[in-house]
């Protein structure tokens, strides 16, 4: 029923820091998540790509020093792709992913509570259908493989590529965000009622 108390405490502390960061990054905000999918607010992509690059450097460095082991999830191609597509539909409809929905409840978003109940129902429903779904979609399994292993290259080559790619992507995103925000201001000044409505909305990100 319970894991050892030190494991539980460690989970709670890790989660606390994670939730704190998600809230400070505005990722617990409905508008941030939906805005990402509408390609108007790129906060999600910025946080995710920075976390991936910084995380990869430390985790691979510790692995090379023999301090940690990797925990790779198997690439069951059709399950991951179909599951990811289903997940994307749910994320756009709910306006959160599982972790940020829980964080949203913490900052007062009441509509994330039915979302949480839906998530529990989704887990229960999946448990009933796991065996047949595995039969249909579980055939093509590349195993617990990394991009470096799949291509027979050094992981550091991939990490360097990711870092360079991320910096380029961020430059592009910042340029694009400035451009679309300029457009919104132009349209708003042609329709004065829009100016007041957009300025009075509390969820509008700082700097827009």
């Amino acid at each position: 029923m319970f894991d050892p108390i030190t494991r539980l405490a460690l989970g709670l502390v890790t989660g606390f820091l994670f939730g704190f960061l998600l809230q400070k990054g505005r990722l617990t905000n409905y508008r941030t998540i939906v805005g990402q999918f509408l390609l108007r607010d790129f906060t999600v992509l910025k946080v995710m790509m920075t976390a991936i690059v910084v995380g990869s450097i430390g985790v691979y460095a510790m692995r090379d020093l023999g301090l940690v082991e990797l925990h790779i999830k198997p690439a069951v191609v059709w399950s991951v792709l179909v599951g990811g597509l289903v997940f994307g539909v749910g994320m756009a409809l709910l306006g959160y992913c599982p972790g940020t929905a829980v964080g949203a409840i913490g900052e007062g978003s009441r509509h994330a509570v039915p979302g949480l109940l839906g998530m529990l129902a989704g887990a229960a429903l999946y448990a009933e259908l796991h065996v047949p779904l595995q039969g249909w979609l579980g055939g093509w399994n590349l195993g617990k493989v990394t991009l470096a292993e799949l291509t027979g290259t050094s992981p550091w080559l991939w990490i360097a590529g990711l870092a360079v790619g991320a910096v380029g992507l961020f430059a592009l995103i910042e340029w694009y965000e400035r451009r679309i925000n300029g457009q919104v201001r132009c349209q708003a000044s042609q329709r004065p009622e829009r100016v007041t409505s957009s300025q009075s909305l509390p969820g509008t990100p700082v700097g827009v």
Partner: protein
Amino acid sequence: MGWIRAKRWSPYLVGALIGVLSWFSFAVSQKPLGVSTAFVRAAGLAERAVAPGHVARNAYFQSKTPKIDWGVMLVAGILLGAFTAAKLSESYRVERVPDLWAARFGPAVWKRYLAAFLGGLILVFGARLAGGCTSGHAISGGLQLAVSGWLFIGAVFAAGIVTALALFGREVSHV
């Protein structure tokens, strides 16, 4: 200590700190950050209270045993951490219907709650089919260069963009 009360930190700083948190998680807990398995364990615990035999016979609950573990406490911690951050910056705010949703679908609370319930159901069903969510597959998988993580990221963005545009169109996105 003004920074701890700030309403918003730079997304790059937040991302970098989540990256550092994942080092901590690997080194100290021997676990990557991951959220969605906890929902299976919690759903299993709730279901076991009603139908213990049914849960005991279920193959999926045998591999993801219903229990309070590191991951379930991680989710509890997220709730507390986000609450603390929101209170410190005075951004705690009761929201029943988000503005963006109301601008498109009206202010009816039941409509938003129903959509949130269905969205949540679809979300975790997809996460369990894929074997992880934004934290377990995208961030933790992505940073380990896992093929599964990068396949997941591509699929989520493709479906999320199509769904959001279908729901909201391009014009309301200015609201």
